[in-house]
């Protein structure tokens, strides 16, 4: 069996799991300044406090897994994206500590709330830039990054950065619809109605731009057999968006979140179709970057046993904290 393909899917799964779980979590940070100081902010924070830590661990798995399974890709991509990744790490520090610090220092709560917002939006924007720069292609020379300091900066990467901000903010709003009630939920529904069109516009722009940043993508999407996917794709996006829109007003409180995830899922599949089977588009394939068979196999044994277990206890933790977040917190 070709373990390289298995590992490509495991890494893709880790990235997807990260987006599913940390996306709403960062999104709430992005929406944070739009919430009135006081109960609603506290509620929003409480809707993620018990789980943010586990959510962020998927990011570590994405990085660590890439090093283990595709060391060459890790060694080229990370220096190429030095600036946005460093910005993301620093931003994550601010938002991560805000979860604790805002409760410990009432006098500076405003400051840590601002840190939570800036950290969340900067981390999201940096992740979007990272994605855009990767899709655009990275200069490789030998077994190392061969480009310059600012290569990651382009109109396209700024567009993907902004798109991800809109996307995570939508996930955040939908999570609030799911986990809260009353005035905060009403507010979140309003946010979602504004964010969904923004995200759709962003998906449209990125989809239109992608075939032109790299000729290969164009061929992928507009030659046989890629067209089988190309044509239904916009239709599916529109259908998911319509379903999401309808769910903002009626239906279960979980539906908006699930339909928004559907939009992310479709975008993710689209991305996969564009770059497969490369890990650095147009330069390095998954097989060129792959770790040797012994490394792949050794880690696969652990991943096969542990990932289901992790999903199990993560689900349990969400189950323990299920239901709506009250206004009163603990007592």
């Amino acid at each position, binding site marked *: 069996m070709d373990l390289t393909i298995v590992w490509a899917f495991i890494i893709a799964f880790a990235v997807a799991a990260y987006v599913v779980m940390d996306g709403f979590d960062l999104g709430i940070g992005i929406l944070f300044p739009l919430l009135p*100081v*006081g*109960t609603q*902010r506290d509620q929003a924070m*409480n*809707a993620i*406090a*018990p789980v943010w*830590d*586990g959510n962020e*661990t998927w*990011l*570590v*798995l994405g*990085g660590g*897994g890439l*090093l*283990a*399974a595709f*060391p*060459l890709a*890790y*060694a*080229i*991509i*990370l*220096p190429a994206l*030095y600036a946005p*990744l460093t910005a993301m790490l*620093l931003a*994550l520090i*601010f938002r*991560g*500590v805000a*979860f*604790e*610090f805002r*409760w*410990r*220092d*009432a006098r500076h709560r405003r400051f840590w709330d601002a840190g939570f917002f800036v950290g969340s939006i900067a981390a999201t924007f940096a992740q979007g830039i990272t994605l855009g720069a990767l899709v655009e292609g990275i200069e490789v020379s030998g*077994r*190392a990054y061969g480009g310059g*300091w600012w290569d990651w900066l382009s109109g396209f990467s700024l567009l993907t950065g902004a798109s991800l901000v809109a996307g995570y903010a939508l996930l955040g709003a939908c999570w609030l619809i799911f986990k809260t009630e009353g005035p905060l939920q009403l507010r979140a529904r309003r946010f979602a109605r504004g964010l969904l069109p923004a995200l759709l516009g962003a998906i449209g722009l990125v989809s239109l731009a992608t075939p032109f940043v790299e000729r290969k993508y164009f061929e992928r999407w507009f030659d046989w057999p890629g067209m089988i996917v190309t044509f239904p794709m916009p239709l599916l996006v529109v259908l998911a968006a319509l379903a999401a829109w309808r769910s903002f007003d009626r239906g279960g409180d979980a539906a908006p979140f699930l339909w928004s995830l559907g939009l992310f899922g479709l975008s993710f599949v689209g991305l996969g179709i564009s770059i497969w089977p490369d890990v650095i588009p147009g330069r390095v394939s998954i097989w060129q970057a792959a770790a*040797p068979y*012994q*490394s792949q196999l050794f*880690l696969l044994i*652990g*991943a096969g046993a542990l990932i289901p277990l*992790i999903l199990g206890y*993560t689900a349990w*933790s969400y189950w*323990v*904290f*299920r239901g*709506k977040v009250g206004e*009163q917190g*603990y*007592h």
Partner: protein
Amino acid sequence: MTDADTALLLARCQFAFTVSFHFIFPAFSIGLASYLAVIEALWLKTGNAAFLNLFRYWLKIFAIVFAMGVVSGIVMSYQFGTNWSVFSDRAGPIVGPLMAYEVLAAFFLEAGFLGVMLFGMERVGKGLHFAATLMVAAGTAISAFWILSVNSWMQTPTGWTINGQGQFVPAGSWLEIIFNPSFPYRLVHTVLAAYLTTALVVGGVGAWHLLKGRSSPEVRKMFSMAMWMATLVAPLQIVVGDLHGLNTMEHQPAKIMAIEGYFESYPDGAPWIMLGIPDDEAETVHYPIAFAKLGSLGLKHDMNASMPGLKTLPKRDRPPSEILFWSFRTIVALGFLMLALGMLSLLARLRKRLYDWRMLHRFALVMGPAGFVAVIAGWVTTEVGRQPWVIYHLLRTEDAVSPIATPGVGGSLIAFVLVYFSVFSAGALYILRLMGRPPHAGERGETRAPIRTAGITPSSALRGLRPGPETDGPEKNGPEGGGKER
């Protein structure tokens, strides 16, 4: 200095800075997680509310330490790639899976159960909550296992071969890689260091409240438990440290030469240079205070054993004695002070004066942060001591760095320094504030758990969990206060 040299130096500074800062948190959280598990177990066993109060008191501190450990740890997992890409490419097939095991087996376990540990007592009941605490504690220990295996492999690499792309790949058995020669010693030494560090902090906090005349059952318990740890673990740690040193002598003699200031070779018994000023340029130790033959006695347990010096190595292969000489003496001095604290507290305990011998409390208070200084000095010794290699004798540090330019690394280093100092100083301040208040009856846990509209937890599971009336003004920082402020 060429531009590449500057970039290399800055990359090294950045790694040293971020990893040193990061390690402070796990050094504390590894010990604290186990301590919390022990006091929760004692509470479940005895039903004594003082243990629950202690648990909740330290849990709040643990939450802050843990959060800072997580965010500074994520930085590390990316920095191997951003700054040390050649190392990542070449050593990835070996160190990558080990680090991924750390993520899968440890990080998820800690993070997955942390929410329940912090906020879930009233939801899951005592038994499951204790299980969650145990999982978090186990996670911290498993994390230490894997990351120290990685570090030890870089110090004493075994079980590798080189493939066609110049990468280090497993030669056969992964066990040979994981259990490389320095790993068992480093693991035990580091985990004991974490326990000792935590015990000193807990003891220091207990001593502070005893000095302030707040001798509650909670304060006495924390002080007594911490002093037991000092009494038992400090001597054990000195023995383990000696064994670790003998192991280093065997596999990395250059590190020992630099630690001991041996520039010359001593064919029939090396002196012990207790103090002096090592000078790498002049290849000597100025103003030495030395004792003949004691060096060989200590290092090889034989007075007349021969001991080669740094001059037997080309200059570019030597680690800097100017740093190692001092970092090592810092550890030893602190180690013996910890031993003294352990012994004095035992004496006080035997004479039934543990809670009212103020000199002991002052000593314990001063020793509160000593563990952190010792662990950082320890890592400086072992990491600087393996220079100029990143993988010992196989890959030089200068050859492992990313193709990055000076302005970029300089900029990121400044950003890390500014952010770490401001954010983590604030965190340290909040921790000190929490420590400055004594634990009290009816101590509350993390006070802002999300709550469901309808409760389903059986009331039997809640017996004994409800905190008493809140008395501690400044601690009213839960959501209930949020809406009213300003």
